[in-house]
């Protein structure tokens, strides 16, 4: 058990190091940072001075280790464009992205689980088949097209929901939330829906597959033989056994959603980390790009590692399976 945890942690650290290396290579070699930070009239002395101050005159490996060391303490340097601390900029954008992902996950569970159950127990009915069929379409639709479609229908044509921005936010210490104001709640509907659509189909298909498996098992047959009503069998006995994989998949998907939210954020001009990143890409603001890559990868890797380790605790068969 301990060996498995250590191995899994080592793997996570290795992945993070590789990502940091990628971020560092981008940071170091996309354009010359000195050119980006000084204007064209700067003298050679000013340039050399800055180069020394940034540590760009040191050997490559030393620069990399300094970069890793600083990144580990959350110091990603200063944005080329805004001259502000990168971590500050990202952390003030984080609540927006996190709320969006949270609401999207909530929607996907609320909608996806019942749909999965229905398609599994009423497999032959027309509505189950329609749902199964539309789920292929749901998985295929590009998220940005869904977003544009939602804006076109619900903002431009019907005018029900705002098409961009986050509405009014309420500051709770270091966390700013849009969920406590009316305009904030109205604003999150469309982006969260468009982000959750793919997730809904994923949850639905997973629940359906798991339900079909469980419904075939002996204890369900026994429950039927005991004369327990169908409703109770489906929801209390069968569904409960399907929820574990749903929970793990949801947890693992949150990391992916945080990364993928950048597409949704671009469509809806949602002021989250992803929008910051995309703007940084257009202006080649490398420190922000590098920091965003590291932070999102960290969330992703940590979540995956936790899920894997919880799984190993619950299911002992997996501990040896790594071999």
């Amino acid at each position, binding site marked *: 058990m301990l060996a498995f945890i250590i191995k899994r942690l080592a*793997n996570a650290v*290795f*992945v993070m190091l*590789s*990502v940091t290396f*990628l971020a560092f290579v*981008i940071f170091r070699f*996309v*354009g010359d940072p000195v050119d980006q930070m000084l204007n064209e009239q700067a003298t050679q002395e000013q340039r050399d001075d800055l180069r020394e101050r940034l540590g760009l005159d040191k050997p490559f490996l030393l620069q990399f280790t300094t970069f890793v060391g600083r990144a580990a303490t959350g110091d990603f340097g200063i944005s080329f464009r805004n001259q502000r601390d990168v971590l500050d900029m990202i952390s003030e954008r984080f609540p927006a992205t996190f709320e969006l992902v949270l609401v999207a996950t909530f929607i996907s569970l609320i909608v996806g689980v019942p749909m999965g159950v229905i398609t599994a127990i009423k497999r032959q009915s027309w509505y189950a088949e329609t749902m199964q*069929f539309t789920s*292929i*379409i749901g*998985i*295929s*639709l*590009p*998220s*940005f*097209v869904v977003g*544009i*479609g939602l*804006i*076109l229908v619900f903002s*431009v044509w019907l005018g029900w929901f705002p*098409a961009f921005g986050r509405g009014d936010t309420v500051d709770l210490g270091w966390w700013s939330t849009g969920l406590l104001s009316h305009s904030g709640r109205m604003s999150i509907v469309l982006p969260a829906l468009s982000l959750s659509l793919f997730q809904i189909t994923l949850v639905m298909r997973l629940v359906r597959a798991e339900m079909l498996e469980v419904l075939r098992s002996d204890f369900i047959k026994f429950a039927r033989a005991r004369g327990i009503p169908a409703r109770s069998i489906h929801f209390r006995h069968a569904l409960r056994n399907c929820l574990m994989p749903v929970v793990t998949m949801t947890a693992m998907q949150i*990391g*992916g959603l945080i*990364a*993928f939210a*950048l*597409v949704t954020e*671009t*469509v809806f001009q949602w002021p989250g980390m992803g929008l910051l990143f*995309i703007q940084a*890409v*257009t202006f*080649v603001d490398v420190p922000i*790009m590098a920091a965003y*890559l590291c932070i*999102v*990868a960290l969330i*992703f*890797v940590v979540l*995956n590692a936790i899920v894997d380790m919880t799984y190993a605790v619950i299911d002992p068969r997996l501990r040896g399976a790594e071999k």
Partner: protein
Amino acid sequence: MSDQTSGKAVPTRMERFWDSDLWWSFKSHKSAVGAAIVLLLVIITAFLAPVLSPQNPYDLAALELWNAELPPIWMEGGQMPFLLGTDVQGRDILSGILYGTRISIIIGIASVAVSLVVGIGLGLMAGYYGGWIDNVLMRIGDVLLSIPIVLVAILVSSVAQQFLPPAFREIGVAAVLVLAIAMYSWVQYARVVRAQTMVERRKEYVMASRLVGTPARRLMVKHILPNTLTPIFVAATLNFGLAILIEATLSFLGVGMPPNQPSLGTLIRVGNQYLFSGSWWIVLFPSIQLCILVVAVNMLGDWLRDALNPKLR
């Protein structure tokens, strides 16, 4: 369901195909047949774009500003030959879509081809030789799969475009996109081929072949590879849809195809700016075409996965 085998003793390859389980399964799946027809139509019209489209959308001389922002033909103010209307530069939407689809399809096919070659090659090597080659390759794969794919593709594409010399811009951007997409998807093929190769390697026919002195490369390509192809075929179909999606997403975010060589994603990006000015057709029609294309590919892939799965027969 008519039996198409002739009375000949040895059926030809084509005849064997008409009589195969796969063809039978295809014929009995309405959605698969529908998807295949739609996909064929999309591909044919895309590659006949220069013949079919009323205007060459890349030819700036053909654009007339007084044709700008015309609505589709069935609406008031619509004009021939602009069936689906025009954008703000007077570019015909339909022509833009046909040319754009061609670019999207070409990038999709190219990235699947590149990742297939790389993935199969590396997977065969990892599975056949094992040892450190296997370790290194699979670790690289692990790392790539541990980072969200969109992020990697955006970074690779935007960074690589910085280094493109101006002379290569046109073709270079497409090549960069192909590599950015392939960089991720080869892992999947490599894993499948590797696992299958490790199984096949120990079988008697491979042993026998090795004993008579067949060189390793021939053994891998001629003997082992054909036995790993079925799952690869399914994965490649689904990945083709995914590749088109990723390309469209990158172009939409502004790190893909430039506006003078627009793919479907670029058209949607450009059209998105006019969403609020009432010219909804600029963004809607390219979006619909993209959805049709991806849905058709995925439905075919879905059917293929079930049809080739021996457990579901």
